[in-house]
């Protein structure tokens, strides 16, 4: 029954423990292209389904650029572009430059962190195959789902479904991307 439009095999669970177990099982069986969906973060899944976390790096770069922009802007404007004697203070009065340096650093770091999440998760992505599965609506409220994607080399509709049924899910479906 599997065909070109198939996206993957999905099992529904009503309990984090079962989900984690299931994920671990499937991984043991050699499945790699899998993804777990839960209404709240479950730490244990991160070991089972590993993913590289770029967010901190991006955030750091953002912050760094913020500081550089801020300082060079302040120095250029106050000391080079139009050097004006303000209250007898030196043109390059660095202590007064610190607050803005800090603020811009935080600003850019924060923004880059936020957009990193969107970018990495491929957002916006309002159309997603699993949404075809009516039960999947509960994924954001109370239920958890485990999905073996068809792109997995050892994916086989019947076999995968069989394995999954052994993990006492609420149900198992093959979802097509139509």
């Amino acid at each position: 029954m599997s065909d070109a439009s198939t996206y993957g095999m999905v099992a529904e669970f009503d309990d984090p423990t079962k989900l984690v177990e299931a994920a671990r099982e499937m991984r043991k069986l050699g499945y790699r292209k899998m993804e777990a969906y839960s209404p709240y973060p479950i730490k244990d899944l991160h070991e089972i389904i590993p993913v590289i976390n770029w967010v901190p790096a991006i955030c750091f770069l953002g912050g760094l650029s913020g500081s550089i922009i801020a300082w060079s802007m302040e120095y250029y404007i106050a000391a080079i572009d139009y050097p004006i004697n303000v209250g007898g203070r030196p043109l390059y009065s660095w202590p007064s430059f610190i607050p803005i340096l800090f603020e811009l650093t935080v600003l850019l770091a924060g923004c880059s962190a936020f957009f990193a999440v969107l970018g990495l998760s491929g957002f916006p992505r309002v159309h997603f195959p699993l949404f075809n599965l009516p039960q999947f609506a509960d994924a954001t409220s109370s239920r958890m789902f485990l999905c073996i994607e068809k792109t997995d080399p050892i994916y086989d509709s019947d076999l995968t479904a069989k394995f999954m049924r052994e993990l006492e899910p609420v149900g198992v479906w093959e979802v097509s991307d139509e």
Partner: protein
Amino acid sequence: MPQYFARSANTIYRLVLFASAGSVVVVACLGYLIVRSPYESMQNVPREQPIPFSHEHHVGGLGIDCRYCHTTVETSAFANVPPTKVCMNCHSQMWATSPTLEPVRESYRSGRSIEWTRVNDLPDFVYFNHSIHVHKGIGCETCHGRVDKMPLTWQAQPLTMEWCLNCHRHPERYVRPRDQVVTMGYKYPPNQLEVGRKLMTEYHIQSLTSCSNCHR
């Protein structure tokens, strides 16, 4: 069917996001370009005048010295616009009957001034002094452009503060010998910078960038 969005929605959504982000940038840039545009500074726009007075003819053609009409340019902050009498000095003989000059004669008869439209107009909080600039060897041309090529006069330079500061910060680039001040189409020497510096010391030119030099 719980799939609330067509597959294409993803692409559209992203496009919209990037477009809106982009448009902000575009608008900002446009605004910036506009305020620097000749439109904003009303540059290069020949201005309608009650009498189609041609500097091209009088200066370029007849070679009349600027100071013949703008008499106070060397002595006063204000370079005056010639009184009707000055026009009549010549035009009581030349073109004495030409209809285009009727307003001049009319003004001279009635004693009511000719209403010229101002071409080079600084904001009222800016205090510019002609005499000192002329005295320090800044050519008429530097600010007013090739007046001798203007059939109807227009504003040749943006007259923005940035533009003023350009020269105030680097007078050596623009200063010329005093005797060349009224020259039109003055050719700066190839070594202008050093000539300029020499003139600066000779004419005691400082680079004045204090606010109260122009704003009081």
